[in-house]
């Protein structure tokens, strides 16, 4: 071989790299299937670009360090944090950043033990399972209980930090939770904040996006609104937003579940002959109109609500 010992490529076609990684499919899918979430999608694009550039640099022998990709998802309930985390595992896998691309989703219960010496093996067990993939810690702030200084959560945090630092190429840790409580969590655990490079904030959905989401959810189950029902649903979303315990897409899912319940009941009580597929899959205005959201009126009504 007459070539010099190092045969590093001189140029790398980034567009080609992008195409072969198959990541554009994932990003397109993300755009298509997830409504709204502009800043989040933008950030994911940036991360994907970074990883492709990083890979090119590695091929040319310019970098040896693995970039830190631990992430923090904050946002109100029902804004799609878990859904995006699942996609994230897939994206990172396609980019060759994690080896297996599975998602291990845990909460405090899975990490923290009940008595002395129970926590470390439990946390290690979870970490071992997550190796080669993504560890998703939902409501991560519960790990730290400031009111109890002997709480075993601290032990789990220490092990996590150590693994996040030493096994960067083996797993990606994604924390998720509500913004204000996550901020407080980071204040009391500064080590965590500095080890997390990407803080993604999930914005609330606006009314149009929620309507699009509700239609998407119904379509996924082979249902659809009729015209009147769609108008009512838009009104419903508007009203629901001002009432307590509003949880974005999750509230919508619950509302739709109840609408399906009412639709089934309506079909039973009103059917005089055989029903058609069309009837079975249409949610009409009556199924939504009877919702308590319309009758409740003011948000500070003393009545409980469902």
């Amino acid at each position, binding site marked *: 071989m007459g070539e010099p010992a190092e045969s590093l490529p001189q140029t790398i076609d980034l567009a080609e790299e992008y195409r072969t990684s198959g990541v554009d499919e994932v990003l397109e899918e993300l755009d298509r299937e997830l409504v709204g979430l502009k800043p989040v999608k933008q950030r994911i694009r940036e991360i994907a670009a970074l990883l492709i550039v990083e890979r090119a640099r590695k091929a040319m022998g310019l970098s040896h360090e693995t970039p830190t990709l631990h992430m923090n998802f904050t946002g109100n309930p029902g804004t799609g944090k878990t859904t995006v985390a699942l996609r994230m595992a897939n994206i990172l896998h396609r980019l060759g950043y994690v080896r297996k691309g599975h998602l291990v989703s845990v909460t405090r219960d899975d990490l923290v033990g009940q008595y002395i010496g129970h926590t470390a093996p439990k946390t290690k067990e979870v970490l071992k399972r997550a190796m*080669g993939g993504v560890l998703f810690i939902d409501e991560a702030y519960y790990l730290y209980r400031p009111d109890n200084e002997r709480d075993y959560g601290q032990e789990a945090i220490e092990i996590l930090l150590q693994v996040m630092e030493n096994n960067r190429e083996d797993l990606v840790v994604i924390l998720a939770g509500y913004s204000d409580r996550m901020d407080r969590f980071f204040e009391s655990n500064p080590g965590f904040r500095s080890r997390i490079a990407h803080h993604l904030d999930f914005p609330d959905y606006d009314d149009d996006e929620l309507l699009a989401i509700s239609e998407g959810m119904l379509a996924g189950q082979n249902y659809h609104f009729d015209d009147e029902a769609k108008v009512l649903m838009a009104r419903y979303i508007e009203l629901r937003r001002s009432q307590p315990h509003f949880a974005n897409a999750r509230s919508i899912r619950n509302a739709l579940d109840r609408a399906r319940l009412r639709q089934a009941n309506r079909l039973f009580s009103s059917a005089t002959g055989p029903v058609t597929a069309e009837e079975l899959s249409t949610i009409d205005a009556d199924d939504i109109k009877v919702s308590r959201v319309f009758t409740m009126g003011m948000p500070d009504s003393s009545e409980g609500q469902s």
Partner: protein
Amino acid sequence: MRITQGCFSFLPDLDDTQINAQVEYCLEQDWAIGIEYTDDPHPRNNYWEMWGNPMFDLRDAKGVMMELDDCRTANPDHYIRINAFDNTRGWETVRMSFIVNRPAKEPKLDLARYDRHGRTQSYGLRAGG
């Protein structure tokens, strides 16, 4: 004396990359991995100490390698083996077992003669220094 039992034991010792590749293969087959260690390599010694519970739902060999490193640190001068368990038949069957760590000086197995009832003699292996 070099103890030969399980897979690969007539080959040179596997290095960590090779162990990693073997474990990766086991995980691809959906086998669970257990780590065991002992200081008594007698072939009839079926009961090696378990290093923690067998690992049932790993996806990546890194988890096993971490445990193996811990086990090596704790028992540097012991035999350590990795067992892979297959549960397709409804119980955990060892499908693969290989030694991943040996003491610097391996004990000898001597052939010993025992006097038995009457003038009978029997022979057996005895792990000696």
